[in-house]
């Protein structure tokens, strides 16, 4: 791996591979965004799919993407100095964003946020919550 920037590492308690997907238990994904502190995502279950064909409507051609879907007790630890909890989380290699429509709880040292639906880029610094936001500030 010399010369390559490791963007993320994946660990799991167990994994089952089949033709279409890798099904994981006890998932732990560690991200190393450039110029930012690394953060970890944990979940009870996960599915990794590689080379999924999707139609690019702009170009009019099919393209391939990788997908990670995490569910059950999803925790994002240390992202932008906060911890995020939700029931499921998706990521794909085209949008490169993490997103869910579930209820989310975000806790930091001096504030917390509750809402529904979250979207963020692991390498970015902007996080959006789409619905019913409540923030409490100390």
């Amino acid at each position, binding site marked *: 791996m010399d010369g390559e920037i490791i963007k993320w590492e994946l660990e799991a308690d167990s994994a089952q591979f089949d033709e279409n997907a890798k099904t994981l238990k006890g998932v732990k994904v560690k991200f190393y965004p450039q110029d930012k502190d690394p953060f970890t995502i944990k979940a009870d279950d996960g599915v990794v799919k590689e080379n999924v064909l999707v139609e690019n409507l702009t170009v009019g051609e099919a393209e391939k993407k990788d997908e990670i879907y995490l569910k059950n007790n999803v925790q994002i630890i240390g992202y932008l100095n906060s911890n995020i909890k939700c029931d499921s989380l998706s990521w794909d290699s085209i949008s490169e964003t993490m997103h869910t429509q579930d209820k989310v709880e975000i806790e930091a040292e001096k504030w917390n946020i509750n809402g529904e639906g979250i979207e963020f880029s692991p390498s970015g610094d902007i996080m*959006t919550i789409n619905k019913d936001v409540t923030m409490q500030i100390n």
Partner: protein
Amino acid sequence: MRKNYHLNKVIPLRRLGFYLLVTKKQAGFFAGLIFVSFFILSAIPITFGEEVSKINDESLYKRQITADSLRWEYEAKTAIFTGNATMISKEGNITADKMTIFFDEKDEVEKITAEGNADLIREKQKCGAEIIEIYPDKDLILLEKSAWISSDKAMFRGEEISFDTGKEIINITKGVKGEIQTESEEEPINENMVEIQ
């Protein structure tokens, strides 16, 4: 002669024989009236007490903001709330179309801005403006552009209103106009009402 004023209705000062405009000639009169009005605004009992939700004294949090959506910009240290934004805080209750909270390097609130139909309800006053800015460290609230402030006794408008929340001093600047409410035991105001001259 007995003064027949409508009970619990705001009566424009011009209907009482006055009309408040800021001119050089009226500066002395204006200053006196504003002083009296500040006294009225600040001295009356808790006018909007029932409307003001308060942060529970035992709460760990000083502020609670709710909104339809949030955009958190970590590097810029800003939280941008849009759609039906409301804030309950020690400075009062604010509602607006958009609210932005600016944090400092220590994650402390440095400034809050409320834009679009911005209203602020405090214990003794209700006020609003196109833009409301709060500077917690400076004990300062600024209402900018088409600002207004009212109690159940008086209503003033101006281009800018500032609150020194530490000293409980209110300043209204530029284009100030005002109305004061009076009370009576009689029936509604009519054209035969006696005017104060």
